[in-house]
């Protein structure tokens, strides 16, 4: 047989095209519910509020007029907008810088070995795990004018002349709100920095010590570059959280005094819900959304690590042609930098400073919480003593009796507390279970098929919802729910909470599934499992710790949520505990402060319990999502 031109008559069987580009239908099925629901509960409301921003509504006649960009141009011409933008910028810079610096310091301390480190790691988390409403109540009372704790402390110290109305001065009020924001957010940055520090090879610092670098040099030359990519992420998160700060402003200053703490989010809220100028409010909130998106993109380009040069051979000089002179060794002069302080003294000094640092972190994180608990145990009359004092005259459980058993009080609000706790609990349980169930499926699809375009794009879309302030969503929800009769129903609140929790749960579960080896799935399939049985019988049991973490984290976020609940609930039928606490402030009668502090303590008990007993899960949630504001 000879090979001729017509030889290839043999029918070459074309190899069956391997289906590289397509994912199995099962994969699409896992992410479908989340994506469809997200389109329904986030996509449509967002489009609706975009539409709103092109309309003018008359709150009395309820007539809608299409006005094109008129709302936007009105916003841009409004001096209030520019003032609010300036305040937002100042507030955000202060909050982000403070959060980042403090977070890094916390992380550096918590990364050392010392007695009580586990405890301190839990304590540090409390300010972040607490409901912002409780945080607002606590810090408002610390700074309160006549009877505030800070003034009380000054009187106790004999410095009564320094006592002042802390929120009286507008600029000071803005700074104090920023400090409160830092107090709340620093733990989140600390967690992210700590996890980056823990992944740093310990020998890096040892090498630098041997190379003669002191602690400061090492921090800037070794630690900071190592933290760079984590810093990028934490800065984005803390910037978005600062831009969207709302709850603590609502509780502490309500934009005042004057307009001194009116940031963009507060302005959008006031325009929408106090003046009922929905179109203008929507336009302001849309601008805020754009701002946070733009900043995220900017950070990404500025801070993202430069790509290392490709590992190709660097063209060197042709060695053979040039007569090579071997470089000679230089005799380096002996190290003569005598340390200023004797090493032993230095070690002792370091120990002392470190101890002070540990103590300072403990006091900063825990003292305010302890104070809140102490006030809730003091008789209400203590709160209006003249001169004020930080020491309670006696300890009593009276406040708790008022809110839990409705004994000895005429306060309507206090009587609502048990129902509100129940509502918070039920809503939290339902919403976390639903979203984690859906998120578990989606997390699998996103983890396994992350390189397929469809999954990558939809995952990005999911993450982008993180950049949307809840305020932008609450306005369309309010209007839509009103017409659908969903205001003041569990269903309405659950839908609203799912906009936050669904991406969070999917993202957390994606991280859990990514840790599973792909070979596990193959083994299960070889053993004869269908994809469904493999998922339910093999994968889900293995990621159970991840599921528990997601449920706990979602519950916490739901428990602490204030904005949606405040706008979308109207009666004690559905009002949650943060709404009730905020409601106390509207009544503003001193004898209701006692029950309010008791309710605030009750509201922070679950977060504190989680910080202490489920710290691992909390940290996992924080690191994989950080969605909570």
């Amino acid at each position, binding site marked *: 047989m000879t090979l001729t031109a017509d030889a290839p008559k043999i029918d070459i069987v074309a190899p069956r095209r391997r289906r590289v580009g397509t994912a199995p239908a099962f994969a699409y099925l896992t992410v479908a519910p989340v994506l469809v629901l997200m389109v329904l509960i986030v996509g449509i409301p967002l489009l609706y509020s975009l539409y709103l921003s092109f309309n003018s509504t008359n709150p009395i006649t309820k007539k809608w007029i299409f006005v094109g960009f008129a709302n936007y141009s009105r916003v841009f011409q409004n001096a209030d907008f520019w003032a609010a933008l300036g305040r937002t910028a100042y507030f955000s810079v202060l909050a982000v810088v403070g959060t980042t610096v403090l977070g890094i310091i916390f992380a550096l301390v918590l990364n050392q070995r010392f007695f009580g480190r586990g405890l301190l790691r839990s304590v540090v988390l409390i300010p972040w795990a607490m409901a912002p409403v409780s945080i607002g109540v606590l810090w408002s009372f610390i700074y309160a004018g006549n009877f505030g704790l800070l003034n009380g402390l000054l009187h106790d110290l004999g410095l009564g002349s320094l006592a002042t109305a802390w929120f009286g001065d507008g600029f000071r009020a803005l700074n104090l709100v920023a400090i409160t924001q830092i107090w709340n957010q620093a733990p989140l940055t600390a967690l992210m920095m700590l996890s980056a520090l823990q992944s740093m*090879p310990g020998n890096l610092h040892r090498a*630098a010590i*041997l190379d003669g670098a002191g602690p400061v040099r090492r921090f800037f030359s*070794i630690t900071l570059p190592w933290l760079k990519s984590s810093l990028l992420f934490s800065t984005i998160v803390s910037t978005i959280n600062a831009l969207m700060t709302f709850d603590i402003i609502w509780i502490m200053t309500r934009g005042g005094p004057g307009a001194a703490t009116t940031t963009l989010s507060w302005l959008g809220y006031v325009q929408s819900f106090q003046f009922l100028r929905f179109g203008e409010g929507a336009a302001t909130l849309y601008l805020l959304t754009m701002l946070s998106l733009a900043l995220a993109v900017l950070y990404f380009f500025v801070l993202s690590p430069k790509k*290392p040069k490709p590992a190709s051979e*660097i063209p060197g000089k042709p060695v053979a042609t040039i007569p090579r002179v071997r*470089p000679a060794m230089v005799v*380096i*002069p002996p190290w003569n930098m005598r340390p200023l302080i004797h090493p032993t003294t230095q070690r002792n000094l370091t120990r002392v400073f470190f101890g002070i640092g540990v103590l300072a972190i403990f006091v900063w994180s825990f003292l305010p919480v302890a104070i809140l608990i102490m006030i809730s145990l003091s008789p209400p009359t203590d709160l209006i003593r003249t001169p004020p004092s930080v020491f309670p005259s006696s300890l009593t459980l009276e406040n708790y009796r008022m809110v839990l058993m409705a004994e000895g009080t005429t306060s309507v609000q206090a009587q609502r507390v048990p129902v509100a706790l129940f509502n918070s609990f039920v809503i939290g349980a339902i919403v976390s279970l639903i979203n984690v169930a859906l998120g578990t499926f989606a997390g699998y699809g996103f983890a396994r098929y992350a390189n397929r375009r469809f999954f990558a794009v939809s995952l990005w879309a999911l993450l982008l919802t993180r950049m949307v302030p809840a305020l932008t969503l609450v306005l369309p929800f309010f209007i839509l729910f009103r017409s659908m009769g969903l205001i003041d129903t569990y269903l309405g609140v659950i839908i609203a909470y799912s906009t936050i929790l669904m991406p969070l749960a999917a993202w957390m579960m994606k991280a859990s599934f990514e840790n599973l080896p792909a070979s596990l799935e193959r083994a299960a399939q070889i053993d004869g499992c269908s994809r469904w049985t493999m998922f339910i019988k093999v994968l889900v049991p293995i990621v159970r710790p991840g599921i528990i973490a997601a449920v706990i984290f979602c519950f916490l976020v739901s428990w602490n949520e204030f904005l949606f609940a405040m706008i979308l609930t109207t009666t004690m039928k559905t009002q949650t505990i943060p709404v009730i606490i905020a409601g106390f402030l509207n009544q503003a009668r001193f004898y209701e402060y006692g029950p309010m502090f008791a309710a605030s303590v009750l509201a922070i008990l679950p977060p504190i319990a989680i910080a202490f007993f489920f710290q691992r899960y909390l940290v996992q949630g924080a690191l994989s999502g950080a969605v909570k504001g």
Partner: protein
Amino acid sequence: MSSINIAGLNKRYGQTHVLKGLDLSIKNGEFISFLGPSGCGKSTLLFCIAGLEEISDGSIRFDGREISDLGPRERNIALVFQDYALYPHMTVRDNIAFPLRQQKIDAATIAKQVAWAADVLGIQALLDRLPAALSGGQRQRVAVGRAIVRNPSVLLMDEPLSNLDASLRVHMRTEIRRLQKELGITVIFVTHDQEEAMVLSDRIAVMNNGVLQQFAAPMDVYSRPANRFVAGFIGSPQMNFLPGDLCGGAADHVVGVRPHDLKPGNGIANPFTLSGELVLVEPAGPFQFLDIAIGGHIVRATCTDIAGLSPGETITVGASPEALRYFNADTGARVSHSR
């Protein structure tokens, strides 16, 4: 280029006593290996010498000068870490220059010295890369470069070859030896690989559980092990240990014989013979290992020709009396054969 004297060195982490009364005397320009199983305190000892860990008590002297109070940098030592610890965000050039910059040496001298170190290690072409763009062997060279660039008097290396693949490891160890000869520097080389220690060192310090077992030249350690631990740790495959009474000796002795010394033979040439069932034959290239079950023990022997041997058969192996080592059954110390 220093001599090192360690006397009565103890190191405790809280309750755990990691280094227990170490005494070592290292001469100027020697290549010393610290050899021991992992967790025995080799790295800790190295870190104590480097000043990265405080010692609990004892003394460390360089050229007769007590240095345990000095900071790490003042001791003029350099350390190559097991994971190399290259600064990930600095180029190779900056990595190597880093120790000199800390010393505020002028830029021209630094450039010269970096060029010298790069030339010695053959990494001139890599100077502008980041560590992430280097292979394992290249990273290792950079780590050595960063260590030698400031003319340390002692070079410490903590298992520097353990992250390399087998052939590169063999290549790099000759390079390290060459470099040490060239620089005339005192080197302390930590390893858990007995072959590495044997090949490289002038003397080996064998450690176990924080206690120095033996400190001697490689062949001394091999042929005159101080105790049963050293005998078992040095040499591959491991030395056979048999209860004394099983081979006609005292019951309180353990007899040790290396597989290479134990060969099939019917006892004519060798007065020391053992018989048992051949369990397994393992070919190892030029010779075979024979696993033989003798009195509930598996004894390993070697032979060059397995013709006529098959598993299940009874086989007799023997060794010359000079190849036998005797150890006290309780203390493990080597004893001379008495009875």
